[in-house]
Structure formats: C-alpha cells, structure tokens
C-alpha cells in the first residue's frame, strides 16, 4: 500500500489511495464498501487529521474545477480540491480575493472547510466557515446533500471544522471579498515584549490583518520581542496575480540543521533586517504567504519531521498564558524560527469544532527530538488547558483524548453526525478511550 505523510513528516502511513478526477467518481468512492475512509487534499495539516492508517484515502487534488464564478457578486462555487492558489489566480484579476486565507495558499477548499481555517483577519471577518454559502456532501449511504446555515443546518455546523468526518465534501460555494488592488498597505513595528504586542494589537482595530512574529529564544523581560505587522488591501497598485515559489528544498536537511544556534542566528538576522520597519506597500503573496516562497520548507526539519503547537486561550488569561508558553519554549532552547502570535476576534464560527475563540493564539514549531519534545508539548498543553484554552487539531500530533475533549466539550455533537464510514487517525486517537 502506498505510504502517505502529513506536513509534519512524523510518520509514513500506509493507505489504500484513490484519486478521483471527477465528482461522480468521488461520489462513487464515498458510497463504496471497504476500510474506513478519509479525504486528503494538499497534505498541509501537520499531524494526523489527514491520515487514516490502513484505511482508504480519497486524494482530492484533481477535483479542482470552478463550477460557477459570478463576477458581479463575487460568488464562487468549486470542486472541493480547488486550491487557494488557483482560486486567487482566477479571482484576483477580476478584483476578488479569498475572504480568509491561512499562512499557505496550497490548501484545498475542502481542507479549509474541514479545519475551518483562520487568517490574519480573524478579528474582523471570523473563520473560513463564516464565508461558506453552501457545500455539497456525499455520505456513505449514497445520499448527496446540500448544506448551508439554512439547509441541513445541523450537518453544516458539524461539517465546518468537522475534520472531514461527516462525509466527502464535493463542492464549496464561497462569498469572495472585493479588492481594488493586489497590493497590501502595511505597517511594521518592533515590539520589545508581550505588553507592547497586546497594546498594538488592541490599537489596530482599523486594520483587518494583524500578526506578530516573535523571537522564541528571548527570555525574561524580553519575552515577546519581535515584530508586529498590520495590513489592509490597498486602493491602488493593479491586480497582478502571484508567481510560483522562488526557492525549494530539494531533499531532507540533515537532522541537526535547525538547532539553537542556527535558529538564534536566523532570528537575530531576521530581527535586524534593514528596511523592515515602517510603512510599506507589498504584494498579497509575501504578505499573506511568506513561507510559500520556499517550496517544501518542511524538509528543513530533517528526516524525523517536526511538531507544531498552536493554541488559543481566552482573553482574560491570555497575557500570563502566552508568557508562560514562551518561557517554556525559551527554556527548552530548541524553538522554531516561526513563532506567530495574534489575537482572535469574537465573531462566532458556524462550526461546532471550530478552533478559534475570543482571545489570543500562538503557533510555533519544534524539530522532533523524540521524548523530550513530546514532554515539552505536553507541558504546554497543560498550561493552555488550565487557562481554558485549546489546541488546533490541524496542527496537532500529540494531544491526549482528555485534552481534546476538555478543549472541545461539544465534540459528541460531531461524533453523532459523523458518517459511520469516515475516520481519521486523529479522531481515533482523541476519542478512543471516551467510547
């Protein structure tokens, strides 16, 4: 059986893989008998939400047709395997943009729905699921349903953020966002600590996009040192689309390449880059998707792969929790060159298992060093849970069933709506002992 891995490259997992090229074939795959079933898009989730060991995997990348594009109203309906990459290539020249984009454009619409992804504009527009007008779902019973907030609303709520477990998502209809330009007006500030992050984030209500990059090795009063970046779509600059990746990582880096020294060096250089601060106009591609410039950057972490921790904590305890998490990371000394910090807003998602909650979120990766890394992740999870927070399933590879169920108390509602034929390694892991 072919082996499949996720973005974190922690395990290579055997699957029975099919790759339908048309929706009728995807419907047929959904209702055929066999081992447990799961869909797999671009494999950008980090842990095991996209894996299904010894089960069947429907790879959706060939289902990427745009079925309808209303250029007046900005409504786009497409097969679930359409990537944000291709969506933008078609929509941007017409003056439309995806309402929500995560840190990479190489994800599918189906994956965006299943993980209810968020972007740098969460405070002003909510999650991806908030902009889904309708979607088509094939159930293993052979039923093909249209879901929306009005139609089959319970199944819609279970499917948005439902980790692909309610059936095979066939198509997604999306409300796009009007833009006058492909450029983004940005302002970048140096921040010395977490205090300054919170102050700037709260002062930036007029700015739809906000995010901070933080040096994970800074300790003590410097905890939270880094940059704060805010942006809004520009009014001028033309509607040019993005190009392909500029660099690539052709093979696995040796295991120890990313260590405290190289990351410290990277962070220092990154912080002292010339011309980074102040007011600038940049294209949406480097602004929204900085890591897409390097194809397959996940190989930098070497053959053992890497973990990502992304958590959300309620605002009331956000400050102390983030500081505690950053301290744990700095003390561990093997942090990542990508720590992202931002505030979440209070626009509720239609999805039951949606990750964001009103508060703050932190994302950082760690090379896989085995037990010691797992212990650190467990400690961090503990800190997050005790603050009433939760972890992001799309990034997670280690949280316990208890931790998941504490963070997502409504999970049984999704379990009740789950298609009996659908399953993932993640779901098996976090629901096993709760049966």
């Amino acid at each position, binding site marked *: 059986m072919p082996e499949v891995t996720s973005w974190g490259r922690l395990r290579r997992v055997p699957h029975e893989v099919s790759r339908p*090229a048309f929706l009728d074939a995807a419907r047929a795959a959904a209702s055929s008998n066999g081992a447990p079933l799961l869909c797999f898009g671009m494999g950008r989730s980090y842990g095991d939400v996209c894996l299904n060991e010894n089960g069947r995997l429907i790879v959706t990348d060939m289902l990427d047709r*745009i079925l*309808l594009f209303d250029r007046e109203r900005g409504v786009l309906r497409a097969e679930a395997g359409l990537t944000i990459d291709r969506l933008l290539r078609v929509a941007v020249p017409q003056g439309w943009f995806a309402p929500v984009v995560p840190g990479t454009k190489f994800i599918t619409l189906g994956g965006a729905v299943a993980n209810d992804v968020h972007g740098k504009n969460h405070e002003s527009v909510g999650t991806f699921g908030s902009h889904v007008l309708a979607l088509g779902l094939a159930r293993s019973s052979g039923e093909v349903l249209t879901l929306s907030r009005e139609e089959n609303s319970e199944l819609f709520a279970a499917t948005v953020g439902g980790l692909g477990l309610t059936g095979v998502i066939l198509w997604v209809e999306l409300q796009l966002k009007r833009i006058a330009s492909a450029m983004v007006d940005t302002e970048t500030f140096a921040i010395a600590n977490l205090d300054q992050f919170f102050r700037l984030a709260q002062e930036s209500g007029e700015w739809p996009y906000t995010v901070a990059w933080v040096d994970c090795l800074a300790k003590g009063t410097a905890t939270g040192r880094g940059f704060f970046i805010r942006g809004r779509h520009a009014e001028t600059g033309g509607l040019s689309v993005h190009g392909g990746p500029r660099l690539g990582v052709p093979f696995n880096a040796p295991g120890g390449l990313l260590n405290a020294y190289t990351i410290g060096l990277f962070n220092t250089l990154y912080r002292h880059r010339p011309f980074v601060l102040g007011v600038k106009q940049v294209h949406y591609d480097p602004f929204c998707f900085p890591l897409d410039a390097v194809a397959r950057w996940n190989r930098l972490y070497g053959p053992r792969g890497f973990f990502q921790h992304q958590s959300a904590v309620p605002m009331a305890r956000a400050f102390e929790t983030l500081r505690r998490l950053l301290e744990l990371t700095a003390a561990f000394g093997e942090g990542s060159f990508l720590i992202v910090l931002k505030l979440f807003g209070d626009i509720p998602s239609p999805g039951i298992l949606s990750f964001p909650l009103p508060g703050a979120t932190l994302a950082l990766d760690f090379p896989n060093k085995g037990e010691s890394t797992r212990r650190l992740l467990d400690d961090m999870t503990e800190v997050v849970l005790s603050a009433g927070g939760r972890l992001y399933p799309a990034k997670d590879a280690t949280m316990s069933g208890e931790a998941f169920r504490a963070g997502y108390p409504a999970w049984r509602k999704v379990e009740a709506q789950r298609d009996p034929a659908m399953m993932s390694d993640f779901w098996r892991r976090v629901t096993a002992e709760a049966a």
Partner: protein
Amino acid sequence: MTRILILGATSAIAQAYARRRAAQGCTFILAGRREDRLAAIAADLKACGAGAAESFVIDLAAVDGIEEGMGTLHARFGEFDEAVIAYGVLGEQSRAEQDLALTRTLIDTNFTSAAMWTLALLKDRAAATAFTVVGIGSVAGERGRASNFIYGSTKAAFDRVLEGLQQKHDGTSVRIIRVKPGFVDTPMTNGMAKGGPLWATPDRVAADIDRAVARGRRVVYTPWFWWVIVVIIRHLPWFVFRRLKI
C-alpha cells in the same frame, strides 16, 4: 477569437491545455462521452476566461460514427481554427497480450478512430483558412519495447499518419503538431508508481503544447529531456537493447 475543438476533453492534459488557452480568451467545443464531466470542464473554462465552452457528447472511439459525428459537429458549431486529439487508453500490456478484444479496443481507440478523426477534420477544408491540428502521441511509440508495445504501437501508427499529413500540407495554412509526452501524472497513469524526476504535471505538458502551437513547431517532446532519452533509446544497438527491462 480562436475556436478550439477538443476531442477527448476530459483527458487531464487536454484540460490543462484548455485552461491555458481559456485564459487567452479562446472558445471551446468539448467532445467526449460523459455529459456531466464535460459540463464541469466547460464551467471551469468559462471561469478561467473562455469566451464560450460547449459540450458535444459522442463516443469518439466508435469507428462507424465518425463521418456522421463530423457532420453533426460542423452543422452545430460551424468551423474551427484548431483541433486537439487528446483521447486515448493506456490498457495493461500483459492483459492486452492475452485478451484480443482489449488489444482491438486499444488499436481502435488510439489509432483507427484517431486517424479517421484527423482525416475527417482535414477533408473538404478550404485551403485558404488557417487550421491547426494538435495530436497527442507518446514517447512510448518511439521504439517497440516488451513492457508496453501494444499501446506504444498504436501511438506510433498515429504519429506516422500525422507525419504524413505534415508532409502533405507543408507550405499550406494547415499545421500539424505532434506532441510526445513522457510520464504524466494523470488518471491514465494512476496504476503506476509515480514520483521522481521523469514525472511531469499535466500543466507542465500543457505549457509546452501552448508554446509549440504559438510557435508552430512540428514535433514537441514534453518535458524537453524526453527528446534526449528517446534519441538514446532509438539508437541503442540490439545487444544492449535486448537486455533492458523497459
């Protein structure tokens, strides 16, 4: 506005090529068997910028229906500026050697019907109007190899037809372009182990075809390095060739 007829529009290479031409504002007649699949492709091409995209449901491999099909096409859609012959079946060599019905299907689909469609397209054309025929062949047709000679020979035979037409129409407004892709990651090759430097995406192949059509090239190996591989394989002496497991 260029009007393009695609025979076998649901092929992954044809779809990728049509997307590129759609962005240039071309219009399309999409011929194939499956109405629902053609409709999805037509919708997609319109979203990409195609002036129009219409479906024509027909079993292209049905040898007896070609003349009538051609008549219906002309009656319904008028004249075309370009035709792409993109359909075909790979088949499993070991099965085709045992199952003569399968052998016949491969020959009828990839060669007999494809050659007849090409001739039907060129028949009775006014010599003055520009017309381009793009025939999708395969590097598999460049030498008879134990692993794949039935499929390969159907593509080789089709290539000879196209080559002959090139000579016949040399210096006229009719251009024939012979496309020879190597390993392409499409549903056709889903049974094979994929990955590695020899495999190309349909869009990579489509980009090469697009360029070849724009420049009026006669033969295009895609990606380009297949030209080198083919030259070597074609010139291998027998005492080497017989030992190769290809």
